[in-house]
């Protein structure tokens, strides 16, 4: 290979420059209106949470056990493949989650995009969204409030499929007899959230 051809290899490591230019692209994209889904990783006492939002609002909050690749594939398929890690859009939610885990925030003020939740599941989660901080409700109560008093089992399933745990507080729904019931992130996390809120059932 000639000296000229070697010169044309463009020697020098450009990977760091490329990484920072690509990170800047997340902001460019978010400002353009063409970014359908922005996601970010948010530190929490449970480890890094993945949060994803459309231009309308929050679509997804996932505990660390959920593999990021599967989450991305789901969002690409069900919402849009125009997905980027663009933390700016989620900064307000990041701050609110920090405050919530520090015990200084009792409700979230971030719009919700309901498009990943359908039918009865959406009714259940909308009712659940209104259970106040520090209070608990039962599967039966939620069933009654959705207008289907006999559907407590279906309520349990809908809560188990909650795509936005913590923000939609499905941890505040417990069994009638005082048992905790299940939780999408594991029952230990449910207990911890209820302790944080000071509303653990006796």
């Amino acid at each position, binding site marked *: 290979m000639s000296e*000229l051809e070697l010169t*044309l*290899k463009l020697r020098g490591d450009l990977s760091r420059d*490329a990484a920072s230019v*690509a990170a800047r692209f997340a902001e460019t994209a978010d400002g353009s209106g063409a970014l359908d889904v922005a996601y970010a990783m948010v530190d929490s006492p449970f480890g890094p949470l993945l949060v994803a939002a459309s231009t309308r609002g929050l679509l997804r909050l996932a505990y660390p056990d959920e593999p990021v690749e599967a989450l*991305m594939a789901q969002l690409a398929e069900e919402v849009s*493949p125009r*997905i980027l890690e663009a933390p700016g859009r989620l900064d307000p939610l990041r701050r609110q989650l920090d405050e919530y885990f520090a015990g200084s925030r009792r409700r979230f003020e971030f719009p919700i995009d309901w498009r990943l939740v359908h039918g009865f599941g959406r009714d259940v989660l909308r009712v659940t969204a209104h259970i106040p901080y520090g209070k608990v409700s039962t599967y039966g109560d939620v069933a009654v409030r959705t207008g289907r008093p006999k559907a407590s089992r279906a309520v349990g399933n809908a809560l188990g499929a909650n795509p936005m745990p913590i923000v939609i507080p499905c941890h505040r729904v417990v069994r009638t007899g005082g048992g905790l019931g299940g939780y999408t992130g594991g029952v230990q996390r449910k207990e911890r959230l209820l302790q944080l809120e000071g509303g653990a059932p006796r």
Partner: protein
Amino acid sequence: MRLPPFQDLLDGNREAVYRFLVAAVGHQDADDCFQETFLAALRAYPRLERSDNLRGWLLTIARNKALDHHRRQAQHPLPTAPIPEAAAPAANPDHTEVWSAVRRLPAKQMSAVIYRFVNDLPYRDIARLLDCSEEAARRNVHEALKKLRGATYE
């Protein structure tokens, strides 16, 4: 059609696109051209009909953005004197004259020579990107090298 998340495209191709652009327009303008390239790609992405050659698709957009950039510069040359070398230490510390000669090549030869040596692409892929025969891709690289030798080692 099932398309991968755009983040995968960015992660997997940012370096190839950036290297192409640094070679084609220089360090100074590579960042802006990079933003334009990926923004055009993001806008067009949901309408894409094939996903078997996403890198080629991105490198084609990058080439168009680089050529747009050259055209703009030709129409509106900067009124100020060229920035002295010392002011831009990061931009091609060596062989500056080779790279400016590369940027003065005819469009197809410039792209061919960058795809070949900067992006390390085989002639088969270069032919596909330039929409020509493999033979024509080789010829473009050959012609480009001849001109560069003439321009820089005379």
